[in-house]
């Protein structure tokens, strides 16, 4: 049965190791859970021979999930000192055929490196794992049983690249993004193998691996700030007939990143669509992920005129947005500026500071709308706006800038009317001069 979150088939005993994510099959197969614990304990003490035998059996019986666990760093076998070897090549060659011998040998070397906290070495070993795996994978014609292995080894590759970079950074060496870029190149090779699998039928197609790899690549590209590299991947999925057939979990992650990219490209309508999908379909137990999605969904919604409720902000611990929301709704520029400054670090780190600054124009609009309602006339003196701004402690704006801001609002469609410089008035339409924000594209 498939796990909702991970979207993969896996044997129940492996669920135990998936420490952070919740697996719904666990709750239902209570009895199997106990036997899982038993299995987990024994995994930590097997000998090298037993381990290699198990891997060999998995390969011969084409058990992708089991083999994946044997090669994954989420599994307890990596803590087994009998497997943490610096040169297991000979033993591996005895029992396994190439390229599996190379792959498993590199994996064991990797466990050795990780036990010494040498993530540079771990990354190098993992590269060999992925490369040898790819050799085997390419040779699998019209079968995709090895996909779980690919997921496991590529995930570990990205994680080790991250750790290795952090290690280098702490020593003051290495350029940010170098290792991750190389990892991305490896992932792209895997992706190409999957994407070019045109022969196999849909059940055996390697194309089922595409979205997972794309999500991994997105994570890297966002981290190294090379968003333009996402475009060909998005195109690949858009033109794929499998795009709505992938697991919900994978699609939630995908839409999250695509939504963020749309935000970056200032395509807010699209961004809202993607991020909303991601938010509503994200499993209700993944609070952390839901919060992450919300961090990006909120500014987009606010730009489109939908303010979040205080309850929502409280539920997801996003109080940083409280003041921003209040300020925009009231047209309070002073409060908006203060809120942006107060939580500057948080907003900048998340990469939403610039988008929140775009809320300024919405705040102006809301303020001016208040002026309109107060004066109850369709010919509003420009001075009134200036006074309103000064009340909001916006000191460095003069009448020319007021005209410019108003002109901008009219151009964007937020105000229906025109400015008469001679009469120093803003003349607004008698009908709906401040159209609702959601109606403006």
């Amino acid at each position: 049965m498939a796990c909702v979150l991970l979207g993969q088939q896996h044997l129940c005993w492996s669920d135990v190791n998936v420490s952070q994510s919740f697996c719904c099959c666990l709750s239902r197969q209570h009895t199997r859970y106990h036997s899982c614990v038993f299995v987990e304990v024994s995994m930590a003490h097997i000998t090298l021979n037993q381990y290699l035998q198990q891997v060999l059996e998995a390969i011969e019986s084409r058990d992708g999930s089991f083999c994946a666990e044997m090669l994954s760093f989420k599994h307890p076998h990596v803590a087994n000192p009998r497997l943490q070897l610096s040169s297991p090549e000979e033993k591996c060659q005895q029992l396994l055929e190439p390229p599996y011998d190379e792959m498993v040998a590199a994996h064991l070397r990797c466990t050795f490196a990780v036990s010494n906290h040498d993530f540079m070495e771990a990354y190098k070993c993992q590269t060999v794992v992925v490369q040898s795996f790819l050799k085997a994978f390419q040779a699998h014609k019209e079968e995709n049983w090895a996909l779980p292995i690919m997921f496991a080894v590529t995930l570990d590759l990205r994680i080790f690249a991250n750790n290795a970079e952090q290690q280098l950074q702490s020593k003051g060496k290495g350029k940010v993004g170098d290792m991750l870029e190389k990892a991305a190149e490896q992932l792209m090779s895997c992706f190409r193998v999957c994407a070019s699998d045109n022969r196999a039928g849909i059940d055996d197609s390697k194309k089922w691996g595409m979205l997972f790899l794309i999500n991994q690549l997105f994570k890297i590209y966002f981290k190294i700030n090379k968003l333009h590299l996402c475009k060909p991947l998005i195109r690949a999925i858009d033109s794929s007939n499998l795009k709505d057939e992938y697991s919900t979990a994978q699609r939630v992650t995908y839409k999250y990143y695509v939504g963020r990219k749309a935000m970056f490209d200032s395509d807010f309508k699209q961004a809202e669509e993607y991020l909303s999908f991601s938010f509503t379909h994200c499993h209700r137990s993944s609070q952390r992920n839901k919060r992450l999605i919300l961090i990006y969904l909120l500014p987009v919604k606010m730009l489109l005129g939908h303010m979040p409720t205080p309850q929502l902000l409280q539920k997801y611990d996003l109080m940083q947005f409280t003041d921003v929301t209040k300020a925009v709704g009231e047209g309070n520029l002073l409060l908006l500026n203060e809120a942006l400054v107060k939580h500057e670090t948080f907003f900048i780190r998340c990469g939403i500071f610039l988008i929140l600054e775009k809320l300024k124009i919405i705040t102006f609009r809301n303020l001016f709308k208040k002026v309109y309602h107060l004066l109850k006339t369709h010919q509003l003196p420009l001075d009134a706006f200036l006074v309103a701004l000064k009340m909001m402690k916006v000191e460095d704006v003069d009448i020319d800038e007021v005209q410019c801001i108003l002109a901008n609002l009219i151009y964007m469609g937020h105000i229906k009317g025109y400015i008469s410089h001679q009469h120093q008035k803003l003349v607004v339409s008698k009908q709906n001069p401040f159209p609702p924000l959601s109606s403006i594209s």
Partner: protein
Amino acid sequence: MCKLQSIINTLPLSDMTYNCMKPGDQSELSLWLWTRPMNKTAMSIGWHQSRRGRGHRHKEQGRANRERVVEQKAEDPVPHGTCMTMCPAYEIRQREAQNRLHRFEVVAGTERERLPPADVSRAVKEYSRPAAGKDSTRASDLRPPSVLLKTVCYLVDDIAASSTFQPWTEVYSFVFDRLRSVRQDMIIQRVSGPDCVAVLEKSVRFLLYASYRLCGQQLQYFDPRINDTHLQECLSWLLESYRDGKHQHQDEFQALSLLYNLGSSQAIQHVLELPERIRSSPAVQLALAVSRAHMERNPVRLLRLAQRLDFIQVCAVHRYLLPCRRDLLLLYSHGHSSRNCRYPLQRLARLLFLKDALAAELCQVCGVNVTEEWVNFSKSSFTDASSGDLQCRCMHEPLDDEQWNCSAGCVIHGCV
């Protein structure tokens, strides 16, 4: 690449191979360089091309040579230049014999001779594309960082800022090429640190200055896109170099980078993530304010802030000013769109920071109706067509050649 590495890693190191090492084995050196991971931002196109040549020779190498390469790796494989003049001796002789010296490099007064002799104190190593069979890593051909800095100062003081050399397009072409060669030497020698930063800072200033002075020139004399490519390269290398250690002019150049890339969210995000000390400096704060005005689409504010920029900052931002002015006319065409209303031309000209006549011309080009003193805005009459004859250049501060030359040295060196 991996295969070579794995072969090399398993080779035994013996005394014999160590003694076999000869000083002339620099070629193997470059082979080894090819297999080492490189700093990507420091790569120039030329260096990428040098890899093509290496692969061909790689196949010819025997096992013995690879063993020698291992020894080289154990020592310091990065070339260190030993040429203490601005141009290596062999190149002077070669170009002199082939009559390929630039007129700025020959003995004064001999420019018109059939084969003018080189003036060693004025010859500067030229940029040459690395090619197959050509070795760019000979120590005698490479200039060490101190010489590179002196070369750059010479190029700026004696060539770019000089009033004797006309036309300036030729000066630009010469200095551009020689600066490129300086950067190439820096890349090959993996130079980093204060000397590298100083060279890059002057290169950036020169290229910014040139982008302003030669704006609007014919394509054969000045190609803004090529200038832009090199400028972006220098800027990203410079900003990368700033990550380590303290640098005196960092806030200035962070500001210039932001202004030059106005509107780029990546550039703004980079500046926002800078340490507080640099972010709060006046230069960066002003650049951020300009950037904010641009993002909020407030051309009135932007043009006002632009008046507070110093000369080199204007050079960096000037290409955005004409589009900004047109944007003002666009916004006002919509905001003030009314058949009966009029806007005073003089006031508009003040907002645009242009003379009345020039403001009127800009209006006409953009389809905005202008009579003698009044402008009538109408959203339907505004045209988004290219400025056509009205170039960015027309809006520059008018300066004659002498004024340009006087300021050049100061601007490029960065003295206030």
